[in-house]
Protein backbone atom coordinates (compact mmCIF):
# COMPACT_ATOMS: atom_id res chain seq x y z
CA UNK A 1 0.00 0.00 0.00
CA UNK A 2 2.37 2.72 -1.07
CA UNK A 3 1.78 6.22 0.29
CA UNK A 4 2.74 8.91 -2.18
CA UNK A 5 3.10 12.64 -1.61
CA UNK A 6 2.69 14.90 -4.64
CA UNK A 7 3.89 18.48 -5.19
CA UNK A 8 2.24 20.71 -7.80
CA UNK A 9 3.06 24.31 -8.68
CA UNK A 10 3.31 24.71 -12.46
CA UNK A 11 1.03 27.76 -12.58
CA UNK A 12 -0.46 29.98 -9.90
CA UNK A 13 -1.69 27.19 -7.66
CA UNK A 14 0.64 25.50 -5.19
CA UNK A 15 -0.64 22.24 -3.77
CA UNK A 16 0.73 19.28 -1.82
CA UNK A 17 -1.34 16.10 -1.62
CA UNK A 18 -1.00 12.65 -0.10
CA UNK A 19 -2.65 9.52 -1.42
CA UNK A 20 -2.70 5.90 -0.32
CA UNK A 21 -4.17 3.25 -2.59
CA UNK A 22 -6.68 5.57 -4.17
CA UNK A 23 -7.65 7.24 -0.91
CA UNK A 24 -7.01 10.98 -0.70
CA UNK A 25 -5.49 11.62 2.73
CA UNK A 26 -4.90 15.37 2.31
CA UNK A 27 -4.85 17.94 -0.46
CA UNK A 28 -4.16 21.50 0.76
CA UNK A 29 -3.58 24.25 -1.80
CA UNK A 30 -2.96 27.99 -2.13
CA UNK A 31 -3.64 30.21 -5.12
CA UNK A 32 -1.65 33.27 -6.13
CA UNK A 33 -4.28 35.81 -7.16
CA UNK A 34 -3.33 39.02 -8.93
CA UNK A 35 -5.32 42.26 -8.98
CA UNK A 36 -7.97 42.77 -11.70
CA UNK A 37 -6.43 43.50 -15.08
CA UNK A 38 -3.20 41.66 -14.29
CA UNK A 39 -2.03 38.18 -15.07
CA UNK A 40 0.50 36.23 -13.03
CA UNK A 41 4.17 36.44 -14.02
CA UNK A 42 6.69 33.62 -13.48
CA UNK A 43 8.99 35.40 -11.01
CA UNK A 44 6.24 36.66 -8.77
CA UNK A 45 4.40 33.35 -8.91
CA UNK A 46 7.56 31.52 -7.90
CA UNK A 47 8.03 33.98 -5.05
CA UNK A 48 4.49 33.31 -3.88
CA UNK A 49 5.08 29.57 -3.96
CA UNK A 50 8.39 29.87 -2.09
CA UNK A 51 6.60 31.77 0.65
CA UNK A 52 3.95 29.14 1.33
CA UNK A 53 5.17 25.75 0.11
CA UNK A 54 6.67 24.56 3.40
CA UNK A 55 3.53 25.55 5.29
CA UNK A 56 1.36 23.68 2.79
CA UNK A 57 3.66 20.65 3.01
CA UNK A 58 3.34 20.58 6.79
CA UNK A 59 -0.43 20.95 6.45
CA UNK A 60 -0.55 18.00 4.08
CA UNK A 61 1.31 15.80 6.58
CA UNK A 62 -0.77 17.03 9.53
CA UNK A 63 -4.14 16.59 7.80
CA UNK A 64 -3.16 13.10 6.70
CA UNK A 65 -1.94 12.34 10.21
CA UNK A 66 1.34 11.09 8.84
CA UNK A 67 5.03 11.53 9.51
CA UNK A 68 7.83 11.62 6.96
CA UNK A 69 8.65 7.98 7.65
CA UNK A 70 5.16 6.95 6.48
CA UNK A 71 5.72 8.33 2.97
CA UNK A 72 6.99 5.84 0.39
CA UNK A 73 7.59 8.10 -2.60
CA UNK A 74 7.88 11.81 -3.40
CA UNK A 75 6.23 12.87 -6.66
CA UNK A 76 6.45 16.34 -8.17
CA UNK A 77 5.53 18.08 -11.41
CA UNK A 78 8.35 17.77 -13.89
CA UNK A 79 6.41 19.80 -16.47
CA UNK A 80 4.87 21.29 -18.51
CA UNK A 81 4.32 24.73 -17.03
CA UNK A 82 6.02 27.96 -16.05
CA UNK A 83 9.74 27.58 -15.41
CA UNK A 84 10.33 29.54 -12.22
CA UNK A 85 7.42 28.09 -10.21
CA UNK A 86 8.26 24.56 -11.44
CA UNK A 87 11.85 24.94 -10.20
CA UNK A 88 10.71 26.19 -6.80
CA UNK A 89 8.52 23.16 -6.23
CA UNK A 90 11.04 20.68 -7.64
CA UNK A 91 13.72 21.98 -5.28
CA UNK A 92 11.58 21.29 -2.22
CA UNK A 93 10.55 17.88 -3.54
CA UNK A 94 14.18 16.91 -4.17
CA UNK A 95 15.24 18.13 -0.76
CA UNK A 96 12.60 16.26 1.21
CA UNK A 97 13.10 13.13 -0.89
CA UNK A 98 16.76 13.17 0.16
CA UNK A 99 16.05 14.13 3.76
CA UNK A 100 13.56 11.30 4.14
CA UNK A 101 15.52 8.82 2.01
CA UNK A 102 12.63 8.21 -0.39
CA UNK A 103 12.58 7.76 -4.17
CA UNK A 104 11.68 10.73 -6.35
CA UNK A 105 9.21 10.71 -9.26
CA UNK A 106 8.85 13.39 -11.92
CA UNK A 107 5.27 13.49 -13.17
CA UNK A 108 3.74 14.97 -16.31
CA UNK A 109 1.15 17.55 -15.19
CA UNK A 110 -1.40 16.59 -17.86
CA UNK A 111 -1.16 12.92 -16.90
CA UNK A 112 -1.73 13.97 -13.30
CA UNK A 113 -5.06 15.46 -14.34
CA UNK A 114 -6.00 12.38 -16.35
CA UNK A 115 -5.12 9.87 -13.64
CA UNK A 116 -6.99 11.83 -10.99
CA UNK A 117 -10.02 12.08 -13.25
CA UNK A 118 -9.92 8.33 -13.86
CA UNK A 119 -9.60 7.57 -10.16
CA UNK A 120 -12.40 9.84 -8.99
CA UNK A 121 -14.92 9.13 -11.74
CA UNK A 122 -14.02 5.51 -12.47
CA UNK A 123 -14.42 6.17 -16.19
CA UNK A 124 -13.07 3.11 -17.97
CA UNK A 125 -11.56 4.39 -21.17
CA UNK A 126 -12.81 7.90 -21.85
CA UNK A 127 -12.00 10.48 -24.45
CA UNK A 128 -10.41 13.13 -22.24
CA UNK A 129 -10.88 16.84 -22.75
CA UNK A 130 -8.14 18.57 -20.81
CA UNK A 131 -8.85 22.29 -20.59
CA UNK A 132 -7.07 24.78 -18.40
CA UNK A 133 -5.31 28.12 -18.47
CA UNK A 134 -2.20 26.51 -19.87
CA UNK A 135 -3.40 23.49 -21.83
CA UNK A 136 -6.13 22.47 -24.25
CA UNK A 137 -5.92 18.90 -25.51
CA UNK A 138 -8.21 16.04 -26.49
CA UNK A 139 -6.57 12.84 -25.37
CA UNK A 140 -7.33 9.15 -25.66
CA UNK A 141 -5.38 6.20 -24.36
CA UNK A 142 -3.99 3.77 -26.88
CA UNK A 143 -1.18 1.23 -26.61
CA UNK A 144 0.79 2.57 -23.69
CA UNK A 145 0.45 6.27 -24.55
CA UNK A 146 -1.97 9.06 -23.85
CA UNK A 147 -2.28 10.17 -27.43
CA UNK A 148 -3.22 13.69 -28.38
CA UNK A 149 -6.05 13.59 -30.88
CA UNK A 150 -6.67 17.29 -31.01
CA UNK A 151 -5.26 20.39 -29.34
CA UNK A 152 -4.94 24.12 -29.52
CA UNK A 153 -2.49 25.28 -32.14
CA UNK A 154 -1.81 28.46 -30.19
CA UNK A 155 -3.14 29.47 -26.77
CA UNK A 156 -5.18 27.49 -24.26
CA UNK A 157 -8.90 28.09 -23.87
CA UNK A 158 -8.44 29.18 -20.25
CA UNK A 159 -5.80 31.65 -21.35
CA UNK A 160 -8.29 33.19 -23.81
CA UNK A 161 -10.89 33.52 -21.06
CA UNK A 162 -8.37 34.90 -18.56
CA UNK A 163 -7.24 37.54 -21.01
CA UNK A 164 -10.77 38.70 -21.71
CA UNK A 165 -11.17 39.01 -17.95
CA UNK A 166 -8.10 41.24 -17.91
CA UNK A 167 -9.45 43.48 -20.66
CA UNK A 168 -12.77 44.01 -18.89
CA UNK A 169 -10.92 44.16 -15.57
CA UNK A 170 -12.94 41.68 -13.59
CA UNK A 171 -11.63 40.12 -10.41
CA UNK A 172 -9.24 37.16 -10.51
CA UNK A 173 -10.67 35.89 -7.24
CA UNK A 174 -11.37 32.99 -7.02
CA UNK A 175 -10.44 32.71 -10.69
CA UNK A 176 -11.12 34.82 -13.80
CA UNK A 177 -12.97 31.93 -15.46
CA UNK A 178 -15.43 31.67 -12.59
CA UNK A 179 -16.20 35.36 -12.73
CA UNK A 180 -16.64 35.26 -16.49
CA UNK A 181 -19.16 32.47 -16.10
CA UNK A 182 -21.12 34.43 -13.49
CA UNK A 183 -21.27 37.38 -15.85
CA UNK A 184 -22.08 35.18 -18.84
CA UNK A 185 -25.22 34.00 -17.05
CA UNK A 186 -26.47 37.57 -17.17
CA UNK A 187 -25.53 38.16 -20.82
CA UNK A 188 -28.19 37.85 -23.47
CA UNK A 189 -26.87 39.49 -26.63
CA UNK A 190 -24.85 37.11 -28.78
CA UNK A 191 -21.97 38.84 -30.50
CA UNK A 192 -20.69 36.85 -33.42
CA UNK A 193 -17.07 35.86 -33.00
CA UNK A 194 -14.73 33.93 -35.30
CA UNK A 195 -15.23 30.19 -34.99
CA UNK A 196 -11.85 28.55 -35.54
CA UNK A 197 -11.91 24.78 -35.45
CA UNK A 198 -9.10 23.41 -37.62
CA UNK A 199 -9.95 19.78 -38.30
CA UNK A 200 -9.19 17.98 -35.07
CA UNK A 201 -7.51 21.05 -33.59
CA UNK A 202 -8.62 24.50 -32.41
CA UNK A 203 -7.17 27.98 -32.50
CA UNK A 204 -7.95 30.70 -29.97
CA UNK A 205 -5.51 33.56 -30.51
CA UNK A 206 -7.53 34.97 -33.42
CA UNK A 207 -10.71 34.96 -31.36
CA UNK A 208 -8.83 36.67 -28.55
CA UNK A 209 -7.52 39.47 -30.79
CA UNK A 210 -10.98 39.89 -32.23
CA UNK A 211 -12.75 40.08 -28.91
CA UNK A 212 -10.15 42.37 -27.32
CA UNK A 213 -10.71 44.76 -30.20
CA UNK A 214 -14.49 44.33 -30.16
CA UNK A 215 -14.57 44.85 -26.40
CA UNK A 216 -13.04 48.31 -26.70
CA UNK A 217 -15.27 49.34 -29.59
CA UNK A 218 -18.59 47.90 -28.44
CA UNK A 219 -18.28 48.77 -24.77
CA UNK A 220 -17.32 52.39 -25.42
CA UNK A 221 -20.29 52.86 -27.77
CA UNK A 222 -22.60 50.98 -25.44
CA UNK A 223 -23.58 48.47 -28.10
CA UNK A 224 -23.18 45.64 -25.65
CA UNK A 225 -22.40 44.94 -22.03
CA UNK A 226 -19.40 43.07 -20.60
CA UNK A 227 -21.89 40.32 -19.70
CA UNK A 228 -22.78 39.94 -23.38
CA UNK A 229 -19.08 39.59 -24.26
CA UNK A 230 -18.57 36.93 -21.61
CA UNK A 231 -21.65 35.07 -22.78
CA UNK A 232 -20.65 35.22 -26.47
CA UNK A 233 -17.08 34.11 -25.81
CA UNK A 234 -18.11 31.14 -23.68
CA UNK A 235 -20.68 29.97 -26.23
CA UNK A 236 -18.14 30.14 -29.03
CA UNK A 237 -15.19 28.59 -27.21
CA UNK A 238 -17.17 25.79 -25.63
CA UNK A 239 -18.94 24.88 -28.87
CA UNK A 240 -15.52 24.51 -30.46
CA UNK A 241 -14.34 22.26 -27.65
CA UNK A 242 -17.45 20.10 -27.90
CA UNK A 243 -16.90 19.76 -31.64
CA UNK A 244 -13.32 18.52 -31.41
CA UNK A 245 -14.20 16.21 -28.53
CA UNK A 246 -16.99 14.70 -30.58
CA UNK A 247 -14.66 14.28 -33.55
CA UNK A 248 -12.16 12.37 -31.38
CA UNK A 249 -14.94 10.23 -29.93
CA UNK A 250 -16.13 9.30 -33.40
CA UNK A 251 -12.55 8.50 -34.39
CA UNK A 252 -12.02 6.23 -31.38
CA UNK A 253 -15.52 4.78 -31.14
CA UNK A 254 -15.63 6.02 -27.54
CA UNK A 255 -18.72 6.21 -25.38
CA UNK A 256 -17.23 8.13 -22.45
CA UNK A 257 -16.04 11.71 -22.08
CA UNK A 258 -13.94 12.89 -19.15
CA UNK A 259 -13.37 16.61 -18.67
CA UNK A 260 -10.33 17.58 -16.60
CA UNK A 261 -8.48 20.82 -15.91
CA UNK A 262 -9.53 24.07 -14.29
CA UNK A 263 -11.89 25.14 -17.08
CA UNK A 264 -13.90 21.96 -16.76
CA UNK A 265 -15.07 21.74 -13.15
CA UNK A 266 -18.31 20.16 -12.14
CA UNK A 267 -19.75 20.91 -8.77
CA UNK A 268 -20.71 23.94 -6.80
CA UNK A 269 -19.14 24.44 -3.40
CA UNK A 270 -19.73 27.32 -1.03
CA UNK A 271 -17.09 29.94 -1.40
CA UNK A 272 -15.15 30.50 1.81
CA UNK A 273 -12.70 33.27 2.33
CA UNK A 274 -11.47 35.73 -0.24
CA UNK A 275 -8.11 37.39 -0.36
CA UNK A 276 -6.76 39.47 -3.19
CA UNK A 277 -3.11 39.77 -4.14
CA UNK A 278 -1.60 37.29 -1.73
CA UNK A 279 -1.93 33.65 -0.92
CA UNK A 280 -5.38 32.74 0.21
CA UNK A 281 -6.48 29.49 1.69
CA UNK A 282 -9.50 28.29 -0.16
CA UNK A 283 -11.06 25.40 1.63
CA UNK A 284 -13.64 25.06 -1.10
CA UNK A 285 -14.50 27.35 -3.91
CA UNK A 286 -16.35 27.10 -7.12
CA UNK A 287 -14.33 27.60 -10.21
CA UNK A 288 -14.67 26.39 -13.74
CA UNK A 289 -17.61 25.80 -15.85
CA UNK A 290 -21.17 24.62 -15.63
CA UNK A 291 -21.87 25.82 -19.16
CA UNK A 292 -19.19 23.61 -20.68
CA UNK A 293 -20.57 20.64 -18.76
CA UNK A 294 -24.03 21.47 -20.05
CA UNK A 295 -23.01 21.72 -23.70
CA UNK A 296 -20.88 18.59 -23.53
CA UNK A 297 -23.76 16.83 -21.83
CA UNK A 298 -26.08 17.62 -24.74
CA UNK A 299 -23.60 16.19 -27.22
CA UNK A 300 -23.05 13.07 -25.12
CA UNK A 301 -26.76 12.50 -24.76
CA UNK A 302 -27.18 12.69 -28.53
CA UNK A 303 -24.51 10.02 -28.93
CA UNK A 304 -25.63 7.89 -26.02
CA UNK A 305 -22.31 8.52 -24.29
CA UNK A 306 -21.54 9.21 -20.61
CA UNK A 307 -19.99 12.41 -19.33
CA UNK A 308 -17.60 12.45 -16.38
CA UNK A 309 -15.99 15.32 -14.52
CA UNK A 310 -14.51 16.04 -11.11
CA UNK A 311 -15.14 18.88 -8.70
CA UNK A 312 -12.85 21.84 -8.05
CA UNK A 313 -10.76 19.96 -5.51
CA UNK A 314 -9.35 17.78 -8.27
CA UNK A 315 -9.94 19.50 -11.58
CA UNK A 316 -8.08 22.65 -10.61
CA UNK A 317 -4.32 22.04 -10.23
CA UNK A 318 -3.67 20.24 -6.95
CA UNK A 319 -1.00 18.13 -5.26
CA UNK A 320 -2.88 14.87 -4.94
CA UNK A 321 -3.33 14.46 -8.70
CA UNK A 322 0.46 14.43 -8.98
CA UNK A 323 0.58 11.97 -6.09
CA UNK A 324 -1.93 9.72 -7.85
CA UNK A 325 -0.06 9.71 -11.16
CA UNK A 326 3.10 9.19 -9.12
CA UNK A 327 1.47 6.25 -7.34
CA UNK A 328 0.65 4.57 -10.66
CA UNK A 329 4.14 5.20 -11.98
CA UNK A 330 5.83 4.07 -8.77
CA UNK A 331 3.90 0.82 -8.68
CA UNK A 332 4.90 0.03 -12.23
CA UNK A 333 8.56 0.61 -11.43
CA UNK A 334 9.33 4.17 -12.48
CA UNK A 335 11.80 6.24 -10.48
CA UNK A 336 13.45 9.56 -11.34
CA UNK A 337 17.15 9.89 -10.58
CA UNK A 338 18.07 13.22 -9.01
CA UNK A 339 20.33 14.13 -11.91
CA UNK A 340 17.38 13.53 -14.27
CA UNK A 341 14.92 15.47 -12.15
CA UNK A 342 15.24 18.74 -14.12
CA UNK A 343 12.01 20.52 -14.86
CA UNK A 344 10.87 21.36 -18.35
CA UNK A 345 8.41 23.94 -19.60
CA UNK A 346 7.43 21.77 -22.55
CA UNK A 347 6.44 18.18 -21.91
CA UNK A 348 4.06 16.50 -24.31
CA UNK A 349 1.46 14.18 -22.84
CA UNK A 350 2.43 11.45 -25.30
CA UNK A 351 6.10 11.51 -24.27
CA UNK A 352 5.39 9.35 -21.25
CA UNK A 353 5.21 5.60 -21.58
CA UNK A 354 2.07 4.59 -19.69
CA UNK A 355 3.39 1.32 -18.31
CA UNK A 356 0.68 1.04 -15.70
CA UNK A 357 -2.10 0.39 -18.22
CA UNK A 358 -2.51 -2.38 -20.77
Amino acid at each position, binding site marked *: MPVVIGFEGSANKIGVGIIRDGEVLSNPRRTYITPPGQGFLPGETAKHHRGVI*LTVLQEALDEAGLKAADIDCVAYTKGPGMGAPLVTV*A*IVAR*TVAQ*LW*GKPLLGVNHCIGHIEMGRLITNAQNPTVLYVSGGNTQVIAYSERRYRIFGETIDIAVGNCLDRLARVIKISNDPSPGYNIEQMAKKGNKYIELPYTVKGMDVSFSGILSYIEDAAHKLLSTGQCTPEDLCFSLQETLFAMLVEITERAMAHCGSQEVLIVGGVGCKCFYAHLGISVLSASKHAFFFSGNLRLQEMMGVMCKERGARLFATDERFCIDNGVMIAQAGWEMFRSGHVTELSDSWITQRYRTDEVEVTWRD
Partner: protein
Amino acid sequence: MLFFENKGTFNQHMTKMPLSNRSSTKYVNMAACVSENDSDKKLEFFLKVPFPSEREAAIALQSLSPDPEPRKGGITKNLDVTGHTLSVRWTADEARILRVSVSSFLDHLSLVMETLDAFGPPVSQ
Protein backbone atom coordinates in the same frame (compact mmCIF):
# COMPACT_ATOMS: atom_id res chain seq x y z
CA MET B 1 34.03 29.99 8.35
CA LEU B 2 34.98 32.48 5.72
CA PHE B 3 36.79 31.69 2.52
CA PHE B 4 38.43 33.87 -0.09
CA GLU B 5 39.10 33.32 -3.77
CA ASN B 6 41.33 35.65 -5.79
CA LYS B 7 41.40 35.82 -9.52
CA GLY B 8 42.84 38.80 -11.38
CA THR B 9 41.38 42.13 -10.32
CA PHE B 10 38.48 41.63 -8.00
CA ASN B 11 35.92 43.11 -5.70
CA GLN B 12 35.56 41.23 -2.46
CA HIS B 13 32.16 41.03 -0.92
CA MET B 14 31.34 39.37 2.34
CA THR B 15 27.68 38.81 2.81
CA LYS B 16 25.39 37.76 5.54
CA MET B 17 22.28 36.31 4.05
CA PRO B 18 19.03 36.32 5.96
CA LEU B 19 17.83 32.77 5.96
CA SER B 20 14.23 32.78 6.88
CA ASN B 21 11.23 35.07 7.31
CA ARG B 22 9.64 32.54 9.59
CA SER B 23 10.25 31.85 13.25
CA SER B 24 13.91 32.67 13.74
CA THR B 25 16.13 34.62 11.44
CA LYS B 26 19.42 32.96 10.80
CA TYR B 27 22.37 34.36 9.01
CA VAL B 28 24.79 32.40 6.94
CA ASN B 29 28.30 33.64 6.45
CA MET B 30 29.23 33.25 2.85
CA ALA B 31 32.16 34.54 0.90
CA ALA B 32 31.57 35.94 -2.52
CA CYS B 33 33.93 37.36 -5.04
CA VAL B 34 33.45 39.07 -8.38
CA SER B 35 36.34 39.39 -10.74
CA GLU B 36 36.81 40.59 -14.24
CA ASN B 37 39.14 38.71 -16.46
CA ASP B 38 40.61 41.34 -18.77
CA SER B 39 41.64 38.97 -21.53
CA ASP B 40 38.18 37.81 -22.59
CA LYS B 41 36.10 40.37 -20.62
CA LYS B 42 34.12 37.70 -18.76
CA LEU B 43 32.78 38.30 -15.30
CA GLU B 44 33.30 35.63 -12.69
CA PHE B 45 31.54 35.18 -9.37
CA PHE B 46 32.35 32.68 -6.64
CA LEU B 47 30.25 31.69 -3.70
CA LYS B 48 31.14 29.32 -0.89
CA VAL B 49 28.32 28.25 1.37
CA PRO B 50 29.01 26.31 4.57
CA PHE B 51 26.49 23.72 5.79
CA PRO B 52 26.21 22.10 9.23
CA SER B 53 27.19 18.69 7.81
CA GLU B 54 28.64 17.03 4.72
CA ARG B 55 25.35 15.26 4.15
CA GLU B 56 23.36 18.48 4.07
CA ALA B 57 25.83 20.09 1.69
CA ALA B 58 25.45 17.07 -0.60
CA ILE B 59 21.66 17.30 -0.38
CA ALA B 60 21.78 20.97 -1.30
CA LEU B 61 23.97 20.18 -4.30
CA GLN B 62 21.57 17.52 -5.56
CA SER B 63 18.59 19.80 -5.12
CA LEU B 64 20.14 22.81 -6.81
CA SER B 65 22.04 21.31 -9.73
CA PRO B 66 19.53 19.46 -11.96
CA ASP B 67 17.75 22.42 -13.56
CA PRO B 68 19.48 24.17 -16.46
CA GLU B 69 19.95 27.94 -16.43
CA PRO B 70 16.81 29.50 -17.95
CA ARG B 71 18.95 31.71 -20.13
CA LYS B 72 20.70 29.67 -22.78
CA GLY B 73 23.67 31.86 -23.57
CA GLY B 74 25.92 34.31 -21.79
CA ILE B 75 26.10 32.53 -18.45
CA THR B 76 27.49 29.35 -16.97
CA LYS B 77 27.13 28.08 -13.45
CA ASN B 78 28.98 25.22 -11.78
CA LEU B 79 28.20 23.69 -8.42
CA ASP B 80 30.46 21.49 -6.36
CA VAL B 81 30.75 20.17 -2.84
CA THR B 82 33.88 19.78 -0.76
CA GLY B 83 33.32 18.56 2.77
CA HIS B 84 30.73 20.79 4.41
CA THR B 85 30.91 23.46 1.77
CA LEU B 86 28.90 24.04 -1.37
CA SER B 87 30.83 26.11 -3.87
CA VAL B 88 29.30 27.84 -6.87
CA ARG B 89 31.13 29.42 -9.76
CA TRP B 90 29.56 31.66 -12.38
CA THR B 91 30.99 33.09 -15.57
CA ALA B 92 28.94 35.68 -17.44
CA ASP B 93 29.23 38.11 -20.31
CA GLU B 94 27.30 40.92 -18.67
CA ALA B 95 26.78 42.10 -15.12
CA ARG B 96 23.03 42.18 -15.57
CA ILE B 97 22.87 38.50 -16.56
CA LEU B 98 25.15 37.58 -13.68
CA ARG B 99 23.03 39.49 -11.20
CA VAL B 100 19.80 37.79 -12.28
CA SER B 101 21.34 34.32 -12.08
CA VAL B 102 22.96 34.88 -8.70
CA SER B 103 19.78 36.43 -7.33
CA SER B 104 17.67 33.43 -8.42
CA PHE B 105 20.24 31.05 -7.02
CA LEU B 106 20.19 32.76 -3.63
CA ASP B 107 16.38 32.48 -3.53
CA HIS B 108 16.62 28.77 -4.29
CA LEU B 109 19.44 28.26 -1.81
CA SER B 110 17.38 29.98 0.83
CA LEU B 111 14.49 27.64 0.08
CA VAL B 112 16.74 24.58 0.41
CA MET B 113 18.02 25.81 3.74
CA GLU B 114 14.53 26.51 5.04
CA THR B 115 13.46 23.03 3.94
CA LEU B 116 16.48 21.44 5.65
CA ASP B 117 15.61 23.44 8.73
CA ALA B 118 11.92 22.55 8.80
CA PHE B 119 12.11 18.91 7.69
CA GLY B 120 15.61 17.84 8.65
CA PRO B 121 17.82 16.39 9.97
CA PRO B 122 18.42 13.82 7.22
CA VAL B 123 17.52 10.22 8.06
CA SER B 124 20.47 7.94 8.64
CA GLN B 125 21.42 6.06 5.50
